[in-house]
């Protein structure tokens, strides 16, 4: 059985598709709507009201294609969790993936076909009518130009679209605003293979990222984050040298990924490639790397010595040489190129240069493997999109169909050409910018209601199945519509199965197709290993970076700061903006939610005389936006950065009309390698306006470095620690007084253990390894989903009234006097103190201590004095200022059908009560009941709180402290372990393991 797979889960997954076939039949792939709370007539035996059923499917929120377990209760999906069998995410899931739930239940979904009337409004029409119109237009448009724009499609639906477009003589453009052209092109230049390889970060001992934000948005964040924490989290057991990989981040801006680096090299924008070449040069010259043939690039490297590039890059030659030597000596190093650098005008060359570095150091074939290639390159290049726009402009497109993409938001030229198109059809779940301008809008099914499949990378075939009765019975899957259009009688499910049947036949599988199919449904797909292929440097590699080493020229007037637009960690290119969970998720770096911002270096801000929240006008050759300043040390002084994703003019109540759209500043033309450039020089003018940033962080003047909260150890010191050491333990009392105090405490405990408290009990506790935690915030969204936490909206967020039980605290350190800037993060949640300050002050026992060590909050008893929150030193108690569940109320958090996502196991809190982390008490009790039914004790690992379950870097461990063999007990005894604010003698239940960094300062 695959790792991380335990019997319980396995059974419940199995349960799905045995009788689940029946369940699915009933669970309505048919268009017949069922108006019952439990939407099936004959209850399938595996569907027990009150117990969850898991459906294995695939996440479609980004091209990574993580495996999902959709947790359904009484036929409704209430939570998305990672599929432990998936080789991509191994049971982990990011915030965006979990928020897909709010895509299904979004209150602003398209529920019925809409057609543009003569008055120019969209009015509901019947499906027959809609199909009729569509059919007619297809007929008349034949030959006059038909185009189908989809999102990234690495599955059968993509093939159907190809087939269909071929049939009608049109073209298919798979549009991704952040396509990875540079990777493809860079690999072609370097190795002659236009593919995106597999990166073995987990096995690396030295990670060098040239802007690749592999922890937040690059390629497959969950997979890479898990791999990264395996390589980079401190583990003394791996021995002196292997204890912890070093991570160096090169890039103009400290992203979430950069924040986790041991060293941040803010190279001048566009010179990352030069740096890579210079390092390669050192490695070759000093024969530090593998014995590979560097013929094709010999004189290229000759032209790029450290001294030659130092000026342009902005780092002195010694530093470059040092990096090169470290990198080579580390043995299994890996260099990644991506993120913003891969969207510079010279992005492809940068990628190629980094490939050369990988090649000369001998990483290619080891940590970088071609063969299990990613499927992200199945997205069309930006150039193809630009060509389409040109044709639209020229009136060469009579019929345009859009599905799963929203170019109307990310590409203004597309909308300018829009009107020139004869007839525009959108298959849409939401009325986004594109759909709301269409002539015909067809309500599409959300991926969680669809049949489909995906190939995240070669060898991985992920299946996608409907996990519940469709929310809006009148919606239809685009695939079904296309088939109907083509006059086929069968559904898209049949089409999908036929493809799989064919594949099955080709593979000559031993098992029958039905078995294979059912297993695939159970396990979320078929997972095989694609063999790797060896590659050699291509001659083209030598021809990159011709000319003197220098930064590329960016659009805009020289002298202006370079603006880089980066994909928002929560909203990505804007597809997440309609989900309140993601809107309310503070950005991992800036901690800002609900609006976009522009990052400015403190020096620059001082020069311009702006402070946090001041609006500046950013003017690029292509557009202008007004943006509130967020001053941050994690950026080059000559660079400003803005996130994409906000500034929607449609896409429902949560997205519409929020701050500005970063894409407006960007060129609509394709660059040298057919990609889009996400960097441009902007003129910055200060305005009089000001706003309060909706930041979960307090006033920067007051926050400080948080030394008391986050402990950091230099690697050297961490390695000296022996079991039994307690570097962070502070003695409150003198040695000689300890026994007396202990005795007294023991007396107190005896006196307190009456009634329910008598006898042995577990002590639930948690351990959080800060050397693994990256601050990605997946746990935060998981907590929202599991515990029915209300989203409060921008206005209340500004007033610091968010309810997030779990918050990721981010502190800036260093920066002054030339010392390196470092961002440190920690999850902060209820510490479930043994001697909790919040409890005794409650006049009505609403806050009290359970026998098993939980710090309970009885919502029904709470009168809302808020004394507990004042007395909580960790400030992890949150108050219901309004009735967030009030239907139609100003602050309603779950407008129908969003309320369907509520977890039936957790109370929805009333106005005026205090709430806080419960250690997912419903899961604890669930596991205890289960154990009782199975007549056994609760085993370590039976209970996983939502945060721990989702954590891609496996930083959170939960269990019983009284059980010495439990993992949490062992971690609690780790020498790196410490309690936050231990001096208050709260006997906190959460043990933090100090963060470990390479280098001296801590």
């Amino acid at each position: 059985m695959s790792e991380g797979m335990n019997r319980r889960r396995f059974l419940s997954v199995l349960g799905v598709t045995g009788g689940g076939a029946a369940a699915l039949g009933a669970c309505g792939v048919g268009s017949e709507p069922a108006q019952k709370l439990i939407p099936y007539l004959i209850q399938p035996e595996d569907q027990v009201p009150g117990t969850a059923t898991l459906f294995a499917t695939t996440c479609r929120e980004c091209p990574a294609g993580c495996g999902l377990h959709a947790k359904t209760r009484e036929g409704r999906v209430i939570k998305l969790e990672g599929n432990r069998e998936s080789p991509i995410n191994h049971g982990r899931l990011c915030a965006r993936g979990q928020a897909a739930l709010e895509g299904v239940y979004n209150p602003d979904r398209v529920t019925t076909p809409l057609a543009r009337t003569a008055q120019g409004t969209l009015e509901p029409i019947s499906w027959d009518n809609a199909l009729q119109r569509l059919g007619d237009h297809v007929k008349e448009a034949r030959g006059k130009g038909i185009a189908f724009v989809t999102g990234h499609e690495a599955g059968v639906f993509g093939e159907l679209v190809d087939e269909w477009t071929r049939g009608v003589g049109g073209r298919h453009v798979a549009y991704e605003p952040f396509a990875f052209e540079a990777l493809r092109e860079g690999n072609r230049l370097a190795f002659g293979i236009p593919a995106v390889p597999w990166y073995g970060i987990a096995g690396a001992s030295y990670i060098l990222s040239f802007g690749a934000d592999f922890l937040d948005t690059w390629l497959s964040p969950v997979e890479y984050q898990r791999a990264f924490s395996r390589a980079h989290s401190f583990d003394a057991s791996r021995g002196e040298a292997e204890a912890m990989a070093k991570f160096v981040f090169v890039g103009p801006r400290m992203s979430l990924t950069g924040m986790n680096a041991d060293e941040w090299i803010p190279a001048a924008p566009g010179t990352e490639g030069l740096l890579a070449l210079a390092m390669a040069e050192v490695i070759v010259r000093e024969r530090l790397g593998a014995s590979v043939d560097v013929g094709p690039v010999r004189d290229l490297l000759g032209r790029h010595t450290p001294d030659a590039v130092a000026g342009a890059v902005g780092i002195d030659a010694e530093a470059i040489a040092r990096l090169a030597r470290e990198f080579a000596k580390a043995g299994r190093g890996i260099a990644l190129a991506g993120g913003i650098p891969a969207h510079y005008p010279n992005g492809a060359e940068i990628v190629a240069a980094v490939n050369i570095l990988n090649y000369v150091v001998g990483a290619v074939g080891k940590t970088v493997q071609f063969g299990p290639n990613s499927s992200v390159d199945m997205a069309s290049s930006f150039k193809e999109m630009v060509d389409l726009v040109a044709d639209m402009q020229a009136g060469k497109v009579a019929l345009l169909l859009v599905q799963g993409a929203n170019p109307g938001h990310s590409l203004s030229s597309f909308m300018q050409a829009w009107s020139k198109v004869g007839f525009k059809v959108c298959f849409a779940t939401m009325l986004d910018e594109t759909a709301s301008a269409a002539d015909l809008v067809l309500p599409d099914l959300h991926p969680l209601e669809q049949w489909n499949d995906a190939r995240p990378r070669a060898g991985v075939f992920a299946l996608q199945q409907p996990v519940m009765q469709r929310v809006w019975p009148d919606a239809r899957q685009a695939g079904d519509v296309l088939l109907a259009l083509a006059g086929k009688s069968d559904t898209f499910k049949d089409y999908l199965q036929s493809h799989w049947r064919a594949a099955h036949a080709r593979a000559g599988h031993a098992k029958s197709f039905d078995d294979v199919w059912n297993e695939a449904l159970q396990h979320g797909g078929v997972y095989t290993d694609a063999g790797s292929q060896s590659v050699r440097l291509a001659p083209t590699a030598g021809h990159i970076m011709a000319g003197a080493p220098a930064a590329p020229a960016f659009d805009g007037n020289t002298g202006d700061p370079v603006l880089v637009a980066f994909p928002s960690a929560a909203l990505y290119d804007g597809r997440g903006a309609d989900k309140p969970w993601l809107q309310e998720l503070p950005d991992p770096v800036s901690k800002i939610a609900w609006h976009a911002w522009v990052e400015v270096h403190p020096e620059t801000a001082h020069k311009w005389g702006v402070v946090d929240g001041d609006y500046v006008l950013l003017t690029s050759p292509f557009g202008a936006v007004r943006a509130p300043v967020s001053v941050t040390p994690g950026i080059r002084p000559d660079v400003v950065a803005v996130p994409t994703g906000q500034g929607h003019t449609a896409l429902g109540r949560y997205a519409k009309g929020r701050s500005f759209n970063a894409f407006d500043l960007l060129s609509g033309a394709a660059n040298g390698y057919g990609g889009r450039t996400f960097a441009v020089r902007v003129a910055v003018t200060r305005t009089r306006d000001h706003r309060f940033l909706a930041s979960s962080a307090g006033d920067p003047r007051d926050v400080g470095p948080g030394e008391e909260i986050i402990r950091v150890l230099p690697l050297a010191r961490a390695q000296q620690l022996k079991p039994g050491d307690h570097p962070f333990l502070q003695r409150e009392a003198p040695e000689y007084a300890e026994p007396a105090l202990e005795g007294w405490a023991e007396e107190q405990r005896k006196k307190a253990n009456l009634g329910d408290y008598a006898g042995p009990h577990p002590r639930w506790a948690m351990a959080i390894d800060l050397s693994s935690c990256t601050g990605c915030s997946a746990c935060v969204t998981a907590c929202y989903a599991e515990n029915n936490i209300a989203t409060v909206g921008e206005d209340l967020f500004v007033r610091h009234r968010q309810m997030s039980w779990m918050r990721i605290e981010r502190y800036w350190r260093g920066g002054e006097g030339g010392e390196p800037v470092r961002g440190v993060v920690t999850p902060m949640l209820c510490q479930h103190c043994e001697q909790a300050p919040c409890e005794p002050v409650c006049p009505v026992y609403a806050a009290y201590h359970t026998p098993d060590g939980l710090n309970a909050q009885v919502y029904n008893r709470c009168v809302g004095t808020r004394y507990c929150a004042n007395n909580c030193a960790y400030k992890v108690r949150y108050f219901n200022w309004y009735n967030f569940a009030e239907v139609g109320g100003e602050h309603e958090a779950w407008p129908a059908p969003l309320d369907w996502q509520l977890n039936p196991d957790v109370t929805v809190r009333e106005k005026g009560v205090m709430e806080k982390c419960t250690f997912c008490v419903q899961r604890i009790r669930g596991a205890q009941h289960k154990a009782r039914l199975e007549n056994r004790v609760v085993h370590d690992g039976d209970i996983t709180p939502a945060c721990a379950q989702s954590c891609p870097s496996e930083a959170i461990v939960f269990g019983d402290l009284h059980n010495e063999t439990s993992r949490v007990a062992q971690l609690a005894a780790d020498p790196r372990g410490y309690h936050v604010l231990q001096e208050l003698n709260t006997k906190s239940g959460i043990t933090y393991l100090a963060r470990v960094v390479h280098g001296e300062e801590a």
Partner: protein
Amino acid sequence: MSFPNPLARVFRPPPTPGVLAVFGHLDAAVDAVIALKRGGHQGFTVYSPLPRHELEHALDQPVSPVRMFTLIGGIAGCSIGAWVSLYMSYDWPVQVGGKTIGSIPPYVVIMFEMTVLFGALTTLLGIGFNVLLAATHRGTIAYDPRFSNDKFGIFVPVAAAQSGPVETLLKGCGADEVRRA
């Protein structure tokens, strides 16, 4: 109505015959009191707009029993405070902050407050009770509004027949006016 009201005796006691003297001067009233006592008069009533020690010395009455009310009330309050807080803690033991279930120090506050509360209330009770009691066996006696302003007064309960000598005695002591009531 013929139906007898049991409380009537308490709140509307039957009138008592007697002599009422009004004094403009304190020392005159004091002399009168002394004279009356020397004359063997009992249960006469002295009115004064304010408490004066001269009068008290002259009358020298027994100490008021009110203090017993206060004392008992205080003790009762203290013990009720202790009982309430301790009983209610052990009635349903709930752990908070790892503290002992029934911990005395914080409950001292409750005990103290209850002591004061009950002490004060029983004191009020005491004075009301005593004054009422006195009133009932004195009966309704004559009064003059000036007694609350600037005059002192003495009422001697005597049957109309024997009131002659009393009147002369009071006049002799310097009463501004003396009348039968």
